[in-house]
């Protein structure tokens, strides 16, 4: 039994095609935003990836946060980079051409503090980025028009941002949710209604760390984003929670490190997975994850579409 319209090829490096709401990728493994250098040569040599997301880009250049930016926690990583990036203009001019030479499908991760800024940002891109497949909206940043409330905490603000992006961006729009949303299902539905092609579930979990010697928070902004293996059970729970509530594809993000992790996320409802922190441990992990998914499917004669969400269909 090998009925697989969406499982093509079975060589060791064969593709495992996925269809993400109209966007076809040759692998369900996506590189998360903010973990790879924006360097075309590095991107070219990444194996097993269907899409690579850029570092979060903002309208203006940003120097990021001062002070400590990284702390290791038990099986996790807290980061407070603060969106250090060269701004959209320099990105388009000096970086994007190099990235495109890698011939990798590209997700442009963007952060914005107002609708006006988002509009301007997409406007600047214009048609200079026609080969950028995905615009990924980082909804974990604060909205200055609403006293700094985080976009993704509110269904209404999420709806507005996604709708605006959809009206201006001709290709896929992904909404990267924040797990801090009071009602993440409501936000997910709002993003779907506004036309998001995929929901990324989810950005980092807010954590904090204390410097014992100083008797003070380690991070200048007190809180920082928790990623890595520690959060995988939380990611799986979000997937279980959201999969029955929306019909757009979900992209798992948070703690995916191994083929097993990826398969669990897909069984819980993800059509694709993003890999972040694990790349800090093993730049070859995406290839291994793809290979692991492929051989799991192969050995069971399963298609990706049968895999995705199967844990919801399992009788318990």
């Amino acid at each position, binding site marked *: 039994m090998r009925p697989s319209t969406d499982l093509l090829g079975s060589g060791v490096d064969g593709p495992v095609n996925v269809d993400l709401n109209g966007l076809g990728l040759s692998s369900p493994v996506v590189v998360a935003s903010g973990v790879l250098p924006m360097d075309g040569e590095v991107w070219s040599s990444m194996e097993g990836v269907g899409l690579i997301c850029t570092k979060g880009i903002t309208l203006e250049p940003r120097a990021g946060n001062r002070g400590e*930016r990284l702390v290791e926690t038990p*099986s996790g990583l807290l980061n407070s980079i603060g969106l250090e990036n060269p701004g959209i203009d320099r990105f388009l001019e000096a970086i994007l051409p190099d990235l495109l030479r890698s011939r990798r499908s590209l997700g442009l991760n963007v952060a914005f503090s107002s609708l006006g800024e988002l509009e301007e940002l997409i406007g600047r891109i214009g048609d200079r980025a026609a080969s950028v497949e995905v615009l990924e909206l980082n909804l974990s940043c604060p909205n200055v028009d609403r006293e700094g409330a985080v976009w993704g905490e509110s269904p209404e603000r999420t709806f507005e941002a996604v709708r605006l992006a959809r009206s201006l961006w001709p290709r896929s729009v992904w909404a990267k949710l924040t797990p801090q949303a009071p009602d993440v299902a409501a936000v997910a539905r709002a993003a779907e209604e506004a036309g998001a092609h995929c929901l990324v579930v989810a950005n980092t979990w807010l954590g904090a760390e204390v410097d014992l010697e100083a008797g003070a928070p380690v991070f200048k902004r007190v809180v920082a984003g928790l990623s890595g293996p520690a959060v995988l059970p939380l990611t799986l729970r979000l997937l279980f929670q959201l999969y029955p509530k929306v019909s757009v594809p979900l992209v798992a993000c948070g703690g995916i490190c191994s083929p097993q992790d990826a398969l669990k996320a897909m069984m819980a409802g993800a059509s694709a997975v993003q890999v972040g922190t694990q*790349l*800090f441990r093993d*730049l070859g992990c995406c290839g291994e994850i793809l290979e692991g998914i492929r051989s799991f499917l192969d050995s069971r004669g399963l298609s990706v579409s049968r895999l995705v969400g199967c844990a919801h269909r399992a009788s318990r």
Partner: protein
Amino acid sequence: MSCGSHRLPRRIPGTVTRVELFPPQVGMIWVRPQETMGPWGPGQFAMVFPSASNDPLLGRPLGLAGQVDGQLLFLCRGVGRGTRMLLSSPPGSPVHLVAPLGSPLAPLEESKLILLGGGVGVAALLPLADRADRLLWAVRDGTWAGLMDRCSEALGLDRDRLVPVFEDGPPGEGCNGVEALWRLPMDLKGATVVACGPSGMLRAVWELGRERGFRSLLGLERRMACGFGGCMGCAIDLKGGVRARVCKDGPFFWGEDLDHEAFD
């Protein structure tokens, strides 16, 4: 799994073959990589993962100090959990490496090349030792002598060019690394000093270079998550507001490119 290109440092399984421990909590760690690592040069480092587990999660950056009979040498000081785990590894313990990382030091063809290592900071300078006029190895006290001897022996360092500097040496002799630079019986003008060690020492070398007219090439340390320029965790300001990543664009930087904030 390979990353298909030599541009990307791979995660390589390895085995700790031996740890030679010296007081005070410093050691020579010998690691046999189970796959061949790409070519590397002086000034580069490895992310060393003390275990295959998820905790500790990240690699610990350690300078590549040498390679003997297919084994890599690291000098490591036990300051926290990861380094202590490494120092207490029994022979045969598994580790992983992501290496080589950082930019290798360009061939330094200067007539006068002085190396100054503070404590285990000397590690990344050792591969340059045979090209230098002097290697000053500055340490706190005589407890380090055993490590210095063993290290010189293992790497076949030229003892004539190696100058051990003991901070607590006999009166009139004891001095720190920067004082030892001062005292060198040579004109430093036009020399290049490559230094790696505590940030106070680096700052002093940097200042001295401006006074005495030598170029300095300084090895910085920052907390690192990736080591390959991805996470922006180690970003610093160079002169003129240019941003650089210590892991990728360094860890060695020319003194003239650095602001004094680099040593905070």
